[in-house]
Structure formats: C-alpha cells, structure tokens
C-alpha cells in the first residue's frame, strides 16, 4: 500500500473529497493557468472590440476549409475539442494578422501588420503569405480576355527609416478574387528583430488603372476583402528537442 501523500496526485485527490466545492474552484483556476502557460500567455488577451466577422471568416476560409456553424462560431475540422492523437510532437502555429492603418501611414497604397504578441515570442517563421483581393471593374470594351497587371509589394525592414525591399508578381485576372504574395523573408526579418513586430508594406500596381483592376487595401466598408497576412511558424527551440526513437 503506497503511503498516503507519497505523491502529489494522491494527496490532492484525498483533500478534494473533503472540500469539493472550494477545491473545484482551485482546480478550475489551475486548469486556466495551465492553458495560458501552454499558450505562453501571462494572462488572457483583452478583447475590447471583436474583429469584424466578415474579415475573420474570409481569412479562416482561405486558411482552412472552415465552416460557419449556426451559432455563428467557426468550426475547424480538427478543432472541435476532441483530442487529436499525439503525432504532433512540435508546437506549430499559424497567425492570421489583419491589415491596419494609422496616422503614421498616410498614403493610400500603404498599410501595416502588427504581428507581435506575447504568446508568439520564440517562433521560427516557416512561411508568410500576404493575401490581397483584386476587384475587376466593368471593362469599357466587351473583350473577355485576361487582364494582366504587375503588382509590387514593397516591405520595409525593421526599424524607422530602414530600407525597403520589393516582392514583384505578375497577376493575371479573369474575375475578381484573392491573390497571394510570399513575404516569408520580410516577416522572418521582423520576427528576428524582436520587440514590436510591425510590418510596413506599400502596394503598387502597374497597369491596374488601364486594365480596370483595383487591389483592395483598406476599405472600411468592405471588411470581407480586408488584406491579411498568414504566418506559419514553429517553436524556435524545437530543433533542440530530443526526439523519441
């Protein structure tokens, strides 16, 4: 017979019998603390204004085949709370960041992303993709061919006044829709710098005006086409973890 109190869980179990009301409260606090610790958060995020649902659903739909349930919550196939098997040994994250504007960003073609967060400190960026929605204006002439434009996404390296780099892509459009631009290098620089991870971008489009194409940057009345950035990352220290053989 193992002596009572010989191990933490045995002792806790017994005391729980005696005062189940208070201890449940303690247990609940302990579990809350456990969840925050595993998400590397000191406290729960303070949500004062929810993200416009249209933007959220669009982004999630692009990221995963997410479905919107009747009660308005988003259901992601492997996120309905049922345990998954443990083949995921390394902690991986995906971060969706929505484009912002503030009085520092005055030009119409500029926007920025705030990717930093307490829980995302020691992540190693695997891939970063910018999603931009291009709207096709009715064509003055009736031809049905593809409209070809060249989109240039300038991204600034971290730090005030630092240099700008370019990601250029030729986009061919038959209809309005989303197009992606790889910004892995840009976001990796921002993450490596640490501190507040603000990514400034400037989007130019050669030929857009002539072709009747409009890249939707920030349009307050059109949240479902708000640009967003998807960052796929892993825990930075994953490399050093000893794998089970």
């Amino acid at each position: 017979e193992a002596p009572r109190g010989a191990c933490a869980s045995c002792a806790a179990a017994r005391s729980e019998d005696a005062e189940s009301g208070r201890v449940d409260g303690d247990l609940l606090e302990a579990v809350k603390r456990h969840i925050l610790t595993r998400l590397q958060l000191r406290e729960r995020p303070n949500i004062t204004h929810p993200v416009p649902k249209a933007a959220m659903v669009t982004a999630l739909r692009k990221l995963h085949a997410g479905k919107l349930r009747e009660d308005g919550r988003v259901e992601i196939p492997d996120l309905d709370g049922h345990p998954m098997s443990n083949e995921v040994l390394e902690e991986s994250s995906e971060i969706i960041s929505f484009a912002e504007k503030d009085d520092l960003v005055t030009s119409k073609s500029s926007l920025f992303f705030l990717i930093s967060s307490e829980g995302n400190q020691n992540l190693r960026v695997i891939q970063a993709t910018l999603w931009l929605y291009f709207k096709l204006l009715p064509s003055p002439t009736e031809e049905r061919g593809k409209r070809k434009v060249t989109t240039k996404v300038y991204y600034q390296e971290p730090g005030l006044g630092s240099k700008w780099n370019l990601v250029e892509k030729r986009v061919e459009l038959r209809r309005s829709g989303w197009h992606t631009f790889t910004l892995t290098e840009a976001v990796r620089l921002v993450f490596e710098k640490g501190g507040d991870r603000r990514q400034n971008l400037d989007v130019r489009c050669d030929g857009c005006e002539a072709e009747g194409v409009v890249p939707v940057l920030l349009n307050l009345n059109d949240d479902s086409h708000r640009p967003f950035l998807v960052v796929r990352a892993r825990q930075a220290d994953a490399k050093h973890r000893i794998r089970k053989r």
Partner: protein
Amino acid sequence: GLECDGSSDLCCRQQFYIDFRLIGWNDWIIAPSGYFGNYCEGDCPPYMAGVPGSASSFHTAVVNQYRMRGKSPVSMNSCCIPTKLSTMSMLYFDDEYNIVKRDVPNMIVDECGCA
C-alpha cells in the same frame, strides 16, 4: 486505463471539462468551445503497479514484478500519473487581434496509470 466512476479508489482518469463560455473565455478563444482538463487520481497498491495496462508503461510493470518477486520484496511507492496524452488545436485572438491557430501537444490526458 481506468475511468473514475466512484466504484473504487484505484488509479483512474477523472474527467473534467471546462466550457469556455461558462468561464467567459469564449470572447478570445474561437475554437474549440471547451477544454478536457482531465487529471489522474487514486491509489496504486503494489498488485496494481505490476499489472500491464494499469502500470504507466510495460517497462514499469516488468520492473515492479521484479520488485515484488525478488528475494527481498521492497514496499513500492507508486504514483498515479498520465500515461497517454493527446494534442489540442486551439484558435484564438491574441492581444493584437491576430488570429492564432496553435497545435499544443500533450495537452489532454487520455489515460492514467501507476508509475
């Protein structure tokens, strides 16, 4: 492993589910809607610590058999611990209103056993 159903004091898994809506966390956690905060509790008498299935691993069962059957059996000090864990995927807002999807391994206790 055993499920705690009050029928015995042996090492078992106690289910403990938290609904995020009830604790007011559903504003920042998008999915899932709750968390299985299961935990292990109960006694590990020697005859259980040496039984495959209730011991934390086959290796532990073998070692405990040796202990029990050896020339000078030692009293065992065994503990009820998680023996099988699974991953949980979470989708939540962070402080910057980014949506973060994170796969957190070893987050849910599936089974308990005697170590």
